[in-house]
């Protein structure tokens, strides 16, 4: 029987009632009643399952690999870039406010810091644009940021130019810029960050390729089952107990099953580790850094506005502070190694910064505005705060490295499976054909 004929044979004949004699289904049914017919049916099933297994094994491995690569090369870097944009904008806003608070000529260090922030934001924005599909909320956020950041920079530049000439309208330019940053740019960066975080979550789903894996397991079981049934049938209907090619085919199938299980289980375990030790703490620490920067920004802007104590319950500082505490606690609980040390150090610096903030508020609220400003922009407070963001940055880098490590490990073996899966399945087909053709020829 040629394969051309085999292909015409439907692998799973449905329960069709009384097919007309002479039709294809009638002939397939008729096959069951003869010994060579049964063998032909079994061979067909083996070949079909073998080919499908090879195909699905290749596709599963390819899909898992594509998913893993997308996660590692696109989704996770996008998350990091979104965080960079967000935190750079928040830091630029805070820095500009502090330079303003300092009064007189802007301190050169603050100017450099502001320029660095803007550079980081625009660089990250350009590379995020490459990683974002052209439609959807993330793309809209990128478009809004691309047009908003130059506008923001222009407003800050006007503020500086006016300040240098001693014109008070500079302050209004600065507050317009700050408003643009807080009401429009930072929320857009947040949209980008959230959509990147969702994409990472989806990326894990894509990398796991659960549907493909489930289908592959079903096919492997079916193939193994058919092999066993065929061998049992053969040993009953012939004098030979073992059919060597079919035995080898069974062994090859088992080897394929084992390889698939090892590779996919390994991939899943590394993905789980990447999510637990990489993505989750990265998102958490990134948020913590953003909240910390906003805290300092709120502290500075309260002084800039000179509007006295914020209404109780409406203080943006308090809201930020709660969120930051929650994230630091969470990050501290899950962390180990260098990240843990960094988070613990961050928590200590946070306490110092909180104390400084309380002293600043106390000074301002008791009418000692100048001293409050001095403390807020002064060297010790800046050092404490920079130590806090530095700790968070270190923990973030450590977790990013952990993610890259796990994702690289997760991708390992998938390439091999993409090639090996179809090859082994083809070998099974060839062996099954060899093993059964000898028996079929006996009926000629």
């Amino acid at each position: 029987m040629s394969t051309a004929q085999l292909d015409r044979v439907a692998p799973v004949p449905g329960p069709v009632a009384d097919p007309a004699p002479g039709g294809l289904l009638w002939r397939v049914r008729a096959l069951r009643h003869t010994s060579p017919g049964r063998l032909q049916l079994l061979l067909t099933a083996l070949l079909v399952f073998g080919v499908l297994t090879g195909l699905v094994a290749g596709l599963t491995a390819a899909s898992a690999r594509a998913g893993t690569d997308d996660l590692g090369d696109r989704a996770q870097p996008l998350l990091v870039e979104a965080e960079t944009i967000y935190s750079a904008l928040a830091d630029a806003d805070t820095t500009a406010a502090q330079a303003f608070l300092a009064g007189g000529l802007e301190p050169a260090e603050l100017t450099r810091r502001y320029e660095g922030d803007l550079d980081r934001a625009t660089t990250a924005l350009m590379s995020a644009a490459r990683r974002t599909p052209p439609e959807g909320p993330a793309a809209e956020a990128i478009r809004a940021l691309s047009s908003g950041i130059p506008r923001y920079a222009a407003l800050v530049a006007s503020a500086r130019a006016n300040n240098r000439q001693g014109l008070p309208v500079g302050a209004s330019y600065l507050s317009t810029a700050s408003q643009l940053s807080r009401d429009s740019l930072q929320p857009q960066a947040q949209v980008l960050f959230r959509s990147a975080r969702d994409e990472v979550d989806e990326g894990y789903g894509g990398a796991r390729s659960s549907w493909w894996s489930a289908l592959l397991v079903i096919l492997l079981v079916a193939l193994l089952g058919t092999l066993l049934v065929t061998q049992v049938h053969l040993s009953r209907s012939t004098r030979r107990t073992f059919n060597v090619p079919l035995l080898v085919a069974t062994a090859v199938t088992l080897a394929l099953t084992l390889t698939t299980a090892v590779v996919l289980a390994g991939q899943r375990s590394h993905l789980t580790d990447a999510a637990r030790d990489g993505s989750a703490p990265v998102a958490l620490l990134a948020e913590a850094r953003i909240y910390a920067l906003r805290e300092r920004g709120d502290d500075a802007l309260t002084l800039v506005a000179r509007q006295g104590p914020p209404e109780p319950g409406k203080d943006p500082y308090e809201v930020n502070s709660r969120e930051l505490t929650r994230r630091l606690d969470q990050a501290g609980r899950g962390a180990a190694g260098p990240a843990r040390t960094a988070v613990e150090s961050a928590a200590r610096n946070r306490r110092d910064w909180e104390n400084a903030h309380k002293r600043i508020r106390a000074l301002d609220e008791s009418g000692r505005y100048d001293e409050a400003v001095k403390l807020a922009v002064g060297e010790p407070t800046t050092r404490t705060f920079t130590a806090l963001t530095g700790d968070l940055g270190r923990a973030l880098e450590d977790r990013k490295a952990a993610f890259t490590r796990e994702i690289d490990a997760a991708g390992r073996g998938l390439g091999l499976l993409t090639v090996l899966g179809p090859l082994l399945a083809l070998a099974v087909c060839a062996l099954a054909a060899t093993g059964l053709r000898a028996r079929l020829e006996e009926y000629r």
Partner: protein
Amino acid sequence: MRARAATAVAVLLVSLAGGCSGDSSRPRAGASAAPSAPPATSGPGAPADTSCKPRASLRPAGPLPKPGAMPAGTYMRTIQDRGRLILGTSQDTLLFSSRNPFTGAIEGFDVDMGRQIAAAIFGDPDKIQIRVIGYDDRVEAVDAAEPVDLVADTMTANCDRWGDVDFSTIYYDAGQKVLVSSTSDARGIGDLGGRKVCAAQGSTSYDNIAAAASRPVPVARAGFADCLVAFQQNEVDAISTDDTILVGLAAQDPYAKVVGPRMSQEPYGMAISQKHHEFTRFVNAVLERNRANGTWKKTYERWLGDLGPAPRPPAAQYRD
């Protein structure tokens, strides 16, 4: 900046003295801003409600107590015990209360009014805490949960506000005008029909723009310096408010000029809570003394000297 301020002032003077005679930047000799002279209210807009006599305040009760010895039970004593006077003002009104970008300090005519009250209470004008308040919070600020003692913030004493706060006697007379681009042909609010005209939210200027017969489009911003930002970004065509504020804005932009006759009278008073009339009487006594001893004149010359020689201070009027 000084030179530019002078130019802008010159523009104001010309428009004041010569009415609509154009926008030449050459000041006329002897022209005076004369804020206490009754301004010509030839502009459009509804006449202000003066049925409550908004210029009249509470009469001082006897001579001023010595600084640092405020009578027990008075609000001045509360302030003295606190150790500082809390003044509500803005930080973006050049010449009246604005932040000096070089020093970071808030200074101007309004701030000096507050400092003189602090000096009368403590003997030290520096015992003052400045709290910046929004234009639309000026009435509420004196009775808020964290109240200010005094609002001196280019605030017009009018009947509507007298319902909620006490005003001191008038310490400055302003009138509303228009600031336009130096290339504009507009000579007043009458030429700005359908155009966007900016004013601070919650200011009487904003209401006057909305009420103008030429039907300009009023645009609100948080403060007048924010209006200047909008003006420089071409978001609005003009700014309209008290001439005093406009002079401060024009001084910061060589491409801006102040035009038009005074559309309204804006007598400035300091707002004080109605819970303690004795403090209003005290403030009026300080104002009375400073009008007489030349302090008012010196303050005027310090901040508004570019407008010309100091006029006579607005005469105090009392309602009791």
